[in-house]
């Protein structure tokens, strides 16, 4: 299988390419499901971002993050803004830097999740909202920080659980074979 001759990205065989497409579909599906109350809603798209980063590394992670963010925003009717694409890319990059080709330990998962929570979700995303709608940054930040304090532990546990689950190891063996 000669896949992609004209690129500097790691080569993918057909199965890996289709799997990435399927994971993107799962991400779009999971973005529609959320748990929690009206005040705090958590969706589980970060699980797919972490999984793609773990299996396919930073480059494919960032590429798919861009595509899913742009398409996901456009087909759900939300207002598109480049900043959130940048956030998605940085989130994927962070997961990949901590998890790609490395064992999934508590320390790695916690560090990756905390970096994403602080840099991407608390600071950057609040800043984007400020740029887009002129919402005052400092009055919006506290609410977002409180949300992250509750959500981040949940994310840490779920990412650790998913990436170490028997199912993921089984599928990983099938993808490599």
């Amino acid at each position, binding site marked *: 299988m000669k*896949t992609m001759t004209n690129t500097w990205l790691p080569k993918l065989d057909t199965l890996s390419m289709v799997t990435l497409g399927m994971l993107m579909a799962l991400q779009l599906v999971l973005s529609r499901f959320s748990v929690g109350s009206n005040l705090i809603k958590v969706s589980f798209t970060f699980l797919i971002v972490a999984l793609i980063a773990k299996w396919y590394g930073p480059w494919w992670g960032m590429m798919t993050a861009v595509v899913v963010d742009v398409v996901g925003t456009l087909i759900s009717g939300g207002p598109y803004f480049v900043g959130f694409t940048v956030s998605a890319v940085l989130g994927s990059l962070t997961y990949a830097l901590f998890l790609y080709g490395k064992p999934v330990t508590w320390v790695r998962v916690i560090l990756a999740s905390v970096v994403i929570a602080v840099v991407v979700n608390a600071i950057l995303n609040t800043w984007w909202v400020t740029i887009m709608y002129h919402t005052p940054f400092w009055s919006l930040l506290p609410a977002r920080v409180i949300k992250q304090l509750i959500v981040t532990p949940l994310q840490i546990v779920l990412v650790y659980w998913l990436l170490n689950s028997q199912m993921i190891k089984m599928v990983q063996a099938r993808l490599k074979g």
Partner: protein
Amino acid sequence: MSSILFGRYLPLDSVVHRLDPRAKLLLSFFYIVLVFMANSLWSYVILVAMTLGAILASKINLGFFLKGIRPLLWLIIFTVIVQMLFSPVGGHTYFHWAFLRITTLGIITAGIIAVRFLLIIMTSTLLTLTTQPLDIATGLASLMKPLRWVKVPVDTLAMMLSIALRFVPTLMDEAVKIMNAQRARGVDFGEGNLFKQAHSLIPLMIPLFMSAFNRAEDLSIAMEARGYQDSEHRSQYRILTWHRRDTITWLIFAIGFAAILVFRRW
């Protein structure tokens, strides 16, 4: 559930619906920039007129646009209130207590921000309501083509995206089926506190993931059996054509954009 994601497209027959998706995508990206550029009363009047014109041309009921605003309503209200309470000194002061004051200038600023909000949300809703997801994907893939020069695997990404869009409805149906099957066995989705709710999603996630991976395996074997080798050396069946109406729409908007730049306070 499945109606949420793909049911947003409204199959009506209007000028806006028939426009080339590339034209619409570029316009809606450009529009956001324009909203940032507009800062005077007249530039806003032009912007509002152009947006309303586009909405009327799409023949879509205004109610659908109001639905698009709902998820961001709390942010709009919050922003407007904060802007009013911390308004700068200017014009008549209506209310003053410690560092909180409401002035004419503050009310005008808050009004402009509310209009900005509505404009941005309405145009993005317009794009979604008038364009099929597959057309959005084809349009994006076509717009990304110049990135080949910096060796971005555009064709492979386009292939992944079309696989993803094709399987969103399938996986959505599957998710609903699995949820019902687990409910029939006693799982309570959406009950209890946050952690309990997250825990109850495990019986949904594991089967959903497995099913997705099985589908990926089957599909990749079927694709190779049909002669798929790579995403580059292929031809295209879905071809977008740029019509005269696309050029005319762009001309109309370009004039509007130029007018906004003229009326902008630099």
